[in-house]
């Protein structure tokens, strides 16, 4: 029996490690096993050389100095380190952080922890297209603000925040600017100097590298100082102790080098696939709505509400596709996506959304097959949906007194 795997359309969740990346990593698990921090013999020197080469590759995609690159375990750790590290180091002078309601959970949760310690946090709203309102940002910054943390690209809806404009504001006001760029690296051009970014988080597994490694970029001029979260041997300029994993560093470096080299061509190819997919849906289905700005968005993301069809129910019918839903029917809370809610999407519409992610290994055959399956299943479930029936009869669903449970 041959088991065919589902078509992978969840590239914002994670990406497969590129075979070219894996090939570069392999020798560092076995022959070149040295500790990159060992200074007294050739094993260590070889490993150190590989790690420093990787650091240069990461710096290059950000237009940063390699000495500003701090290896971590991933973007979650990088975000924790940026927020808590800056807040703790500058706590005697400043006690305020500005972030955004649609940030990744690890940023929001770090902020909650800082609030419990007594820091003040402002959670900026977003416009209905998911983009930050710069006027709101300007208003939120005070004399007490230590850090502004705004994600580069949203993980659910793929919208791109105006990084250069935010950086201009924070630089003028003398406030550090951190951006969670886990979904942005390799998708859009980034330049920490042009954009006045002071701290930037990234993760290898979102860019066809290995899981378990990321980076926090920390600016040297003007210098950003951090209180470390992990103490020990003082590696990574004292900001993140612990022996580096040479193969993981090499994998991240290679993933960055490939992303930098291929980004432009890859973006054009993926955008064409995405547009072909979305157009097929639009021609064949009524009442589908794109969540998040249509233009200011990375090529590989769609987030669509299929009115009157519940997302989890829909996913069950398209088992041949691996993707995720904005409905959180499995969680005990029954609450749909907080990102969609922050855009002002109705709860009922948030329950009908799917996130569809396209990437390096997606092809035309995949998207055509996926579109066909989704159209068939949405039609089947709409025929079964009491809400679809009512909307066809012209009944306004909002006019009904529902018993919320």
């Amino acid at each position, binding site marked *: 029996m041959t088991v065919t795997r589902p078509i992978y359309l969840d590239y914002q969740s994670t990406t497969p490690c590129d075979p070219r990346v894996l090939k570069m990593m392999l020798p560092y698990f076995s022959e070149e096993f040295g500790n990159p921090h060992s200074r007294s013999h050739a094993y260590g020197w070889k490993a150190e050389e590989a790690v420093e080469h990787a650091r240069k590759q990461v710096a290059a995609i950000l237009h940063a100095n390699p000495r500003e690159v701090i290896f971590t375990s991933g973007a979650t750790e990088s975000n924790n380190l940026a927020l808590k590290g800056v807040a703790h180091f500058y706590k005697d002078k400043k006690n305020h952080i500005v972030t955004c309601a649609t940030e990744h959970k690890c940023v929001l949760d770090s902020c909650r922890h800082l609030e419990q310690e007594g820091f003040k946090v402002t959670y900026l709203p977003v416009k209905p297209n998911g983009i930050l309102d710069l006027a709101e940002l300007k208003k939120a910054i005070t004399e007490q603000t230590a850090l502004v943390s705004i994600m580069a690209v949203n993980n659910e809806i793929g919208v791109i925040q105006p990084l250069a404009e935010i950086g201009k504001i924070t630089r003028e006001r003398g406030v550090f600017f951190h951006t969670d760029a886990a979904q942005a690296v390799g998708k859009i051009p980034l330049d920490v100097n042009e954009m006045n970014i002071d701290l930037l988080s990234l993760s290898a597994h979102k860019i066809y590298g290995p899981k378990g490694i990321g980076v926090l970029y920390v600016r040297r001029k003007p210098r950003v100082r951090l209180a470390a979260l992990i103490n020990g041997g003082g590696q990574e300029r004292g900001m993140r102790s612990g022996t580096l994993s040479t193969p993981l560093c090499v994998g991240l470096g290679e993933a960055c080098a490939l992303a930098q080299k291929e980004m432009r061509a890859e973006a054009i190819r993926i955008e064409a696939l995405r547009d072909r997919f979305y157009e097929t849906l639009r021609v064949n289905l009524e009442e589908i709505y794109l969540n998040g700005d249509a233009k200011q968005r990375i090529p590989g993301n769609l987030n669509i509400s299929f009115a009157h069809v519940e997302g989890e129910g829909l996913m069950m019918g398209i088992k041949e596709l691996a993707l995720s839903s904005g409905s959180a029917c499995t969680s*005990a809370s029954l609450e749909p996506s907080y990102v969609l809610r922050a855009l002002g999407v109705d709860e009922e519409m948030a329950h009908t959304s799917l996130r569809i992610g396209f990437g390096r290994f997606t092809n035309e055959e995949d998207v055509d097959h996926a579109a066909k399956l989704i159209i068939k299943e949405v039609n089947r479930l709409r025929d*079964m*949906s009491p809400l679809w029936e009512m909307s066809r009869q012209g009944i306004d669903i909002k006019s009904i007194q529902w018993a919320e449970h």
Partner: protein
Amino acid sequence: MAYSEKVIDHYENPRNVGALDAKDDAVGTGLVGAPACGDVMKLQIKVNDRGIIEDAKFKAFGCGSAIASSSLVTEWLKGKSLNEAVEIKNTAIAQHLSLPPVKIHCSMLAEDAIRAAIRDYKEKHQSTK
């Protein structure tokens, strides 16, 4: 999350999907749940002069477990008297479909739908008499 075989069967081959004429005196309609919570069930029963449910139809907006719960109760309702129908409990639905704890609310909603449909039928008959 893995669904049980019975849930998958009802989801893929739902029984008695459709609508009965809500204006017909012999029909009771129950509409329960809320779009904002991600589950809505519409259950309709058609009762004959001997007080027996001779037909049942449903439509559902929700996850696989919600669709399966409502599909299952339409099967169970047919041939039952109103007094027997009201005895169908969510625990029996959940057990039959092997629903995991996070999906118990789907079976509770199906029980609510039965009660709502019976109530609607009875109200119609009180007002016509």
